[in-house]
């Protein structure tokens, strides 16, 4: 009874937030705000994909940007070289799924056999390789300058892009939620808790780590495609370590292992970032936003290791008890 009521109420909240988000473009006439929200949705998917690794399976990767970058470049190259029709975009999404699927599978096989810190270092190195590849393969990528490209007419309008990104986030949330609630998703959490015990129940750890790696890689690739669409531009920054660190920060601040937290984290980080950029007009210190994020990060890890969602759950548990 309690449980169903609680569920009903959280469904109610989600419904309300979705309605507000749908209404937002009709109320706000700020183009900047619309673009910011669109980026929040897209980064939310990237952060959720990172949460599959970090929060659900307990895998720390420092190279998650490689999938984001593959997604961004693949879509950009398709639209630039072929044509900027919707068909071209959809085919590029398929290509992204194939490419990130292969890469994440190989990463899974090659590196998940390693102990966690070796794995983290190796992912960092491989993402670095992709960055170098994007810099050197000038014919296709135009090096570190990057290139601009046209996008399908349907997505040109900022409001429609906003809705596409919102739908993208909602669909990915439900897909990933379904995955983490599935029998296989539950095994991932068991691996996070106690790998050796999971194996002694008869689960073959490596298979599950590959599955986690692939689900995270595919979702991250799609978010990269969408990101390129919002910018209509791509350069090597999409392979940068900053991109991975953003996902790490968003996931931890929002609350690891919750998916929902990743969306909150994405909103929080990007809103604060935008706020600080505005403040930079007042004082240069605000331009060094990495300093602020570093500080937020340390505070979060020290005082709210469970993130916003975790904190909220603790409060609710106390409330229900008291």
């Amino acid at each position, binding site marked *: 009874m309690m449980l169903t009521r609680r569920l009903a109420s959280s469904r109610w909240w989600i419904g309300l937030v979705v309605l507000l988000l749908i209404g937002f473009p009709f109320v706000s006439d700020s183009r900047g705000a619309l673009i910011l929200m669109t980026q929040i949705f897209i980064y939310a998917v990237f952060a959720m994909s990172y949460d599959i690794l970090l929060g659900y399976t307990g895998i720390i990767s420092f190279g998650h940007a490689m999938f984001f970058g593959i997604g961004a470049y693949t879509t950009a190259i398709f639209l630039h070289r072929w044509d900027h029709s919707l068909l071209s975009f959809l085919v590029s999404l398929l290509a992204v799924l194939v490419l990130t699927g292969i890469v994440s599978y190989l990463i899974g096989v090659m590196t998940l056999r390693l102990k966690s810190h070796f794995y983290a270092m190796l992912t960092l190195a491989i993402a670095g390789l992709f960055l170098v590849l994007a810099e050197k393969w000038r014919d296709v990528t135009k090096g570190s300058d990057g290139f601009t490209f046209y996008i399908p007419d349907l997505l040109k309008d900022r409001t429609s892009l906003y809705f596409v990104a919102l739908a993208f986030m909602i669909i990915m949330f439900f897909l990933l939620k379904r995955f983490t609630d599935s029998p296989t998703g539950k*095994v991932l959490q068991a691996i996070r808790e106690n790998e050796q015990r999971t194996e002694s129940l008869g689960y073959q750890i490596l298979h599950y780590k590959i*599955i986690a790696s692939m689900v995270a890689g595919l979702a991250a690739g799609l978010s990269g495609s969408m990101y390129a669409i919002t910018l209509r531009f791509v350069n090597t920054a999409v392979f940068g370590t900053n991109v991975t660190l953003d996902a790490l920060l968003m996931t931890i601040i929002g609350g690891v292992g919750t998916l929902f937290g990743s969306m909150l984290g994405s909103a929080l980080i990007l809103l604060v970032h935008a706020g600080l950029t505005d403040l930079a007009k007042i004082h240069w210190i605000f331009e060094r936003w990495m300093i602020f994020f570093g500080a937020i990060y340390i505070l979060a890890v020290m005082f709210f290791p469970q993130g916003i969602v975790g904190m909220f759950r603790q409060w609710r548990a106390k409330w229900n008890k008291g």
Partner: protein
Amino acid sequence: MQPILQTEGLTIAFGGHKPVQDVSLNVMPHTFTSIIGPNGAGKTTLFNLLSGQLKPTEGKVWLKGKDITHLSVAKRTRLGLGRSFQITNVFPSLTVLENVRLAVQAQAGVYYSLFASPKKHAHFEKRAIELLETVLLGAKADSLAKNLAHGEKRKLEIAMLLALETEVLLLDEPTAGMSLEEVPSILEVIRRIKEEGNRTILLIEHKMDMVLSFSDRLLVLFNGRLLAEDTPENIMKSELVQTAYLGGLYDDAS
């Protein structure tokens, strides 16, 4: 009849130290074997070799006639060799119910069901609750495993092993650290499994007087070697065992 579990010359060396040395065993199906021996005799290490947590330096292990010496832990479990751990080994931040449910799911062979709705597998939960009730832990189903008292964690460990429904059960001191009042109920659970008659059980237990009554065979390990293997009556009569193990050397501290 063919032994269900068999070892030959099983040895493991850590540097010069050999906690298990040249152990050859034949365990017949549907029997109950208790393993005794002082602390550090190599009992847990022997289990680790049987279940695959450790790989032997020498010797072989067979399960149902199949050489499993080089198989992974997971594969051995799937072939029907399940174990519980002396040092509690559960999923701390998951609920008690989820701990057992994961074992039930493994037993059902649902390994790669990526997008199935939780409803489709609701019966796993029902089975898990039954098992929790068997080990008298039903009331704690929604607690996190890390919040259980030590004795309760031991019960959870047993429920997870039972959930696997393996033909061979390796129980490593299931009652260690339980309060004295709790021990009989757990031994009762073990006795019931034995009486069902379709399992082969190997039990490490220091509380010898309690397991003697339902053991078909007794193995005595001493300094990594198999000192004796016989019926409980004969072991109790054996002079060798009496002097080496039961007389004075037995350390009851744990």
